[in-house]
């Protein structure tokens, strides 16, 4: 197709894209220079060792034995507890590691293997996965955000370059993936691709396939499953021709069903020897015996645990049932709203609401799961920068105890300062009169989005004050947890305070985002694509 014939030509702003992109990657490498979780901490080490161990297992074991406890595969020592796609990814990296440095993946002998070269190698694997899955998806989503922007709207956060730089500089993911060491970028990248296919391309089959891939990389993607399910199911029932409705519904549904099933079969094929094999994998992936939460997580159960010691009152099974009921109640409004009053904006908000509900109420939540909420929030960022920015800051802060344990204090501060600077500068781009700290002013930020509307009400001013005190609180909690030694009877005082502080915020955000979702009308204004002459 020649350039002229392309019916969908559009222009995006690319001014700051290249320097910004390189800078975002530079920040990743600067963080990567810091220690990873469990560095030089035998006998169990940390997530880094887990990933290395999986490479070792997948390279040297029969594929059937990956999830079984055998003489060679001690499941107590970082047994594989992610779905098969993670295992395949580990296998791929393990093969490369085996080629470069066989010692690093030798069976048994390599436990606790650490060296600078190996660290660099592992960092490269994360970096390349990040670029391949996550960065590309972010770029596509940001290009689309500018493509569908009405021509007269001057929302600086929808400018492609600024949106993508802010998205890529989100500190939480950088710190966890490149500092703490995990591969969240892969599952989140696949998830973003799935969301991109729904929001931008409207290709439901591709969206399904990518979401199934994401789900098979990390089971935590289940947090996002309900909105996808509701949206895709509902899409089967709309836009029907007048004749042969039922046939159409069935064929729509079948397409998706075939996509899901064939994907699952392809991925799980090596484990389909017997039902036992499949059940063993599922048992490994969803362990019930681990308890309702491990460390201090900013969710409701940890919050309640401050007053009532849940673990002594209820058994694990009781807890699991309570979690199930609470979660179901929390996700229901958002899902029902999405199902009956479907549109694309609600879809993104519903992703936020459902994943936040899971984070707050479900069983076996980890601090890092907040990333699953943060990424949809970052997608929503251009629509509502003030609240989303607040949320994203809070989500970084909620992971502080974890990062402090890993010795990532300096990168934590630096990436956050960088992030705030970029945000502040973006506001200055829209309003040259803005100062550095004008991001505290909700009214100003709202004006960058809706240039025409004037919302200088008491509520907005109150919001600014709240935001200021919230950041103020974060700052002093950070200072306190660094410099004040907690009383010996409460060694976990500050992590607990942080988690309670964050949890109360998250609850309020939960209400706010639900409200936002409900207040979006069913029919959106028609999208006018910006075309060049």
């Amino acid at each position: 197709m020649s350039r002229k014939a392309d019916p969908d030509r559009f222009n995006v702003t690319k001014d700051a894209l290249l320097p910004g992109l390189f800078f975002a990657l530079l920040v990743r490498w600067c963080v990567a220079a810091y220690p990873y979780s469990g560095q030089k901490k035998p006998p169990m080490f940390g997530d880094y060792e887990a990933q290395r161990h999986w490479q070792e297992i997948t390279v040297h074991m029969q594929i059937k034995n990956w999830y079984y406890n055998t003489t060679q595969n001690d499941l107590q020592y970082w047994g594989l507890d992610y779905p098969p796609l993670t295992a395949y990814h580990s296998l791929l990296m393990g093969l490369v590691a085996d080629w470069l440095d066989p010692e690093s993946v030798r069976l048994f002998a390599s436990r606790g293997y650490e060296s600078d070269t190996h660290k660099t190698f592992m960092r490269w694997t994360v970096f390349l996965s990040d670029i391949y899955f996550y960065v590309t998806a972010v770029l596509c989503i940001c290009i689309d955000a500018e493509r569908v922007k009405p021509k007269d709207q001057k929302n600086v956060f929808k400018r492609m370059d600024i949106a993508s730089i802010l998205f890529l500089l989100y500190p939480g993911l950088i710190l966890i993936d490149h500092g703490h060491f995990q591969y969240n970028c892969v599952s989140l990248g696949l998830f973003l691709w799935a969301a991109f296919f729904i929001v931008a391309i409207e290709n439901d089959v591709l969206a399904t396939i990518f979401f199934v891939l994401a789900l098979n990389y990390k089971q935590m993607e289940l947090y996002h499953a309900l909105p996808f399910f509701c949206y895709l199911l509902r899409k089967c029932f709309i836009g029907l021709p007048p004749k042969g409705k039922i046939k159409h519904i069935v064929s729509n549904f079948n397409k998706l069903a075939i996509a899901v099933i064939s994907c699952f079969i392809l991925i799980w094929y090596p484990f389909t020897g017997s039902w036992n094999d499949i059940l063993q994998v599922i048992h490994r992936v969803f362990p019930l015996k681990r308890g309702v939460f491990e460390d201090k997580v900013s969710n409701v159960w940890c919050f309640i645990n401050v007053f009532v010691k849940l673990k002594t009152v209820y058994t694990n099974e009781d807890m699991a049932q309570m979690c199930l009921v609470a979660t179901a109640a929390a996700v229901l409004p958002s899902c029902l709203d999405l199902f009956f009053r479907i549109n694309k904006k609600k879809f993104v908000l519903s992703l936020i609401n459902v994943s936040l509900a899971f984070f707050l109420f479900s069983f076996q939540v980890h601090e890092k799961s907040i990333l699953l909420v943060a990424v949809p929030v970052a997608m929503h960022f251009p629509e509502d920068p003030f609240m989303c920015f607040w949320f994203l800051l809070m989500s970084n802060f909620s992971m502080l105890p974890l990062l402090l344990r890993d010795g990532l204090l300096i990168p934590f501060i630096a990436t956050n300062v960088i992030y705030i600077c970029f945000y502040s500068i973006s506001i200055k781009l829209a309003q040259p009169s803005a100062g550095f700290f004008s991001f505290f002013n909700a009214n100003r930020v709202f004006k960058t989005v809706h240039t025409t509307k004037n919302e200088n009400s008491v509520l907005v001013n109150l919001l600014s004050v709240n935001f200021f005190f919230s950041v103020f609180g974060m700052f002093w909690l950070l200072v306190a947890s660094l410099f004040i030694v907690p009383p010996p009877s409460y060694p976990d005082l500050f992590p607990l305070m942080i988690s309670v502080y964050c949890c109360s915020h998250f609850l309020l955000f939960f209400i706010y985002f639900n409200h936002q979702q409900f207040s979006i009308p069913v029919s959106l204004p028609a999208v006018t694509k910006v075309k060049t002459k």
Partner: protein
Amino acid sequence: MKKWKYKGRFRVYLPRFSALKTKILNRSTDFEVHRNWLAITHNLSIDQWYYDSTSEWTLDYPPFFAWLEYILSHMAKWFDPKMLHVTNLNYDSDMTILFQRLSVMALDLIYILGVKSCSNLIGNGKLLVFILLVSNPGLLMVDHIHFQYNGLLYGFLLLSISNMITSNYIQAATWFAVLLNLKHIYAYVAPVYIVYLLRAYCFTISSSDGIHTPWYSFSITNLFKLAITVTIVFILSFGPFIDHLPQLLSRLFPFKRGLCHAYWAPNFWALYNFGDKVLQQILPKLGINVPKLEASMTGGLVQEYDHIVLPTIKPWMTFILAGFSMLPALIKLWCLCADRRYRALSFIRCLIVCATCSFMFGWHVHEKAILMLLIPLSFMSVLGDEDGKLFLIISTVGHYSLFPLLYPKNLLAIKIFMLLTHTAIGFGNIPSLYEVPQKSKSSKRRRAFMRLPMLSHIESLYIYGLLILCIYENVLHAAFGLDRTLPFLPLMLTSVYCSIGVFYFWIRYYYYFLTFNLSKLPMVGSVNLSVYAKKVN
């Protein structure tokens, strides 16, 4: 709308933070050097400073720098007093590292001040210059990762330049004298200051033809003022050491070192050495005998080295070469100084030319010295299209040539992305300043495939060559298994390849400066700095 103006805004605050983050990565010998100087200045009395040789890293900077270390050492007490023990060699506690890194960052404020004072003089492109200078990857690498205090020194240089532009000659001379007493390497560009101050300040009348010098307007008072200022600075600096001057000078100018640093800086001597090596291999095959010598230059251990085929170079030769290569530029500067409006620009250009000459031919040049031309050139890059174009080439090559300074493999990606960010800012913004507005749409030609903006095909190819070089060095060389037999080949390739670029830059820029005449003005995108030109007296 000046779109580009916003682009770079993103970077304003950031490089300093990224510097903060890389702080624990790599500590070079320079780290220990500065710790040792802290200890020397803190514990010993003044007359011992230049005699102490407990550590092999003796104090070899001029007195002002010693005083600076003395002041810093009093703050260092609060962090970790143990680092101030003279005998505590190679001491590196966490607090020591923290203190040293913080001191670099704090002293960088002077650099930012200098950058600010320079960039504020420019109309169109103010922000771009600020960002280019602040995000300079060379300084980040040398100061914040490798560890030195170059930011402080270049801050003084920029302050001096900005004062020169605004015709505050006395202040400019003062700042430069202070700079000389902080680090004497800047003596290489002192001739430019002497010529310029003489012509622009001591001769009060300026003619516009550029040839005729109005000798009758020589102002002895101005010369006297200048001399007094500079002398006072030097007395302040060297005064306390007046009894130990010979010892001090012998520390400042050691000639025991070799022609080239362990890693050849990309200058003329790198090509010379390379030629020697090549001839050494080729001549025996042609049947000509060459004497055998075991020493290897790139080994890093050998300080003195004799060339085998080509004549061996002595220190005095390099000085004569550097001096003679500067001479035409200085004469040209004398002529160009006649025009009051544009002489400040000529001054900076001449500064760049002379810095390049000294870099090309100097004795024992460090690769870091390339910053001496890169930093003034960043300032010039928005003031003339030829400057901008050559800046794009030399900033890429010059910063690349600093890569071997940080040899640990885990720093590779940081170096690359630092350079890429900087080049992306440069290549993205500078060309748009000099774009000639197209008359009709049809005449708008698309740039040829893969050709970089403003550069010709060959120059673009050369820049892409760096990419191949980088891949070869880091991946292929080891993959071919050559890292055992020829461990120093990548280093040699880098310095030879980069020296070609620097050589090209030197010739082009020299030619540009020598053929520069005022009829070429005004250039597209050029800025009128003449508003700052004041009449002397």
